[in-house]
């Protein structure tokens, strides 16, 4: 071997197979292999194995990622988990739970989440956190598909449903989805503006409480908006930040639905 040239190491052989040598070192390895046919045979085998392994497992990374591994869902579930104890604490301070501590123990934390439009607002905020950040499938049905499923959505909801038109305020309808809530199914319609800001409009029938309730602001763990109910239908408009336009958007939604 020429003086001054580093001898070929096992690591060089791997780096040769993996294509990680600089041009000069690669020539040295090639020259070495020329004169060592036994090593050459071994390296050929490594190369074949490497290619087969890549072919065998390469496509496994092209499968669609299941919703359970969606980062936006996980991040939303995680922030909710972190917030849960605070919600319980707040309910106790308000006296919800104090007298009925036994009831709370028996029924679990759901009793602490007040019913009525406060519960609706929380469900809308949860949905906004779960879906608005999703860049793959934020909606179940795209806007173009909605006309074909609105009838079904209305059947599930128990009353006819139409997505409010917010184009006058600069928000386009992206599509919609059905949500599950403790009070039954809800419909969500998602909109975005030219800057990619997404808002959700969630509606569902109200049960027992707040069949008609005035518009109230929503501020739930970084999700903002408004919620109200009219004639048994609850509506909440939410965004992932405090948008000045939210009040106006909520008024538009309310006014448009009043005309139905």
């Amino acid at each position, binding site marked *: 071997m020429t003086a001054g040239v580093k001898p070929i190491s096992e690591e060089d052989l791997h780096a040769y197979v993996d294509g990680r040598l600089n041009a000069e070192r690669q020539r040295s390895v090639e020259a070495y292999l020329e004169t060592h046919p036994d090593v050459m045979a071994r390296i050929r085998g490594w190369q074949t194995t490497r290619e087969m392994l890549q072919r065998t497992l390469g496509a496994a990374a092209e499968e669609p990622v299941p919703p359970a591994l969606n980062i936006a869902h996980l991040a939303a579930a995680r922030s909710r988990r972190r917030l849960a104890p605070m919600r319980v604490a707040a309910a106790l301070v308000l006296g919800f739970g104090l007298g009925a501590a036994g009831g709370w123990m028996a029924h679990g934390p759901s009793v602490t989440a007040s019913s009525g439009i406060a519960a609706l607002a929380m469900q809308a905020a949860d949905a906004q956190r779960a879906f608005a950040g999703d*860049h793959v499938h934020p909606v179940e049905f795209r806007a173009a598909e909605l006309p074909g499923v609105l009838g079904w959505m209305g059947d599930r909801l128990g009353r006819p449903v139409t997505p409010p038109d917010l184009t006058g305020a600069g928000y386009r309808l992206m599509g919609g989805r059905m949500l599950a809530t403790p009070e039954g199914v809800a419909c969500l319609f998602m909109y975005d503006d030219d800057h990619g800001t997404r808002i959700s409009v969630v509606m569902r029938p109200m049960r027992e409480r707040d069949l008609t309730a005035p518009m109230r602001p929503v501020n739930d763990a970084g999700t903002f908006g408004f919620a109200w109910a009219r004639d048994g239908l609850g509506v909440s408009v939410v965004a992932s930040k405090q948008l000045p336009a939210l009040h106006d958007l909520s008024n538009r939604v309310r006014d448009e639905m009043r005309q139905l």
Partner: protein
Amino acid sequence: MAELTSLEAAVPSLRRYALALLRDRSDADDLVQDCLLRALDKIDTRVGEGDIRPWLFTIMHNLFISRGRRLTRRAAWLVHDNDAEGSVPAPQSSHLEMQDMLRGLATLPEDQRQVILLVTVEGFSYAEVARIVGAPIGTVMSRLSRARDRLNAFIEGRARPVLRRVK
């Protein structure tokens, strides 16, 4: 958030590696989900620290070591015909070649299997692999040599016995 985007981009390769380690789709996805939740807990501490993939694979490796061994034993690395077909589709590879490769991988000791997968399929540098598996680089290189020799012998052995027997 840029960090969340790069986290999302790494999910397919985390799933592939977890599946190759555990050989069971739902066990693999459970492992990936644990890994992602840990990563979300700590992601604020590593804004601007470069490539997120070695960090994620290190988290997953440690989770796998701490609780995954049990799962591996349960799956026993048995390649069932229908199982391999359902969980590792490889349209550009012939089915038999794929089956051989999975069987070959199954014959490797776990530490060798990890190293050869991280290098050839996931494309990590040798230094990155050393950090991910928590072993000196010399150990990584010798595991890689043994894994390659063994896998190659397995593949060649499977291609030839039929011919030899014919005579």
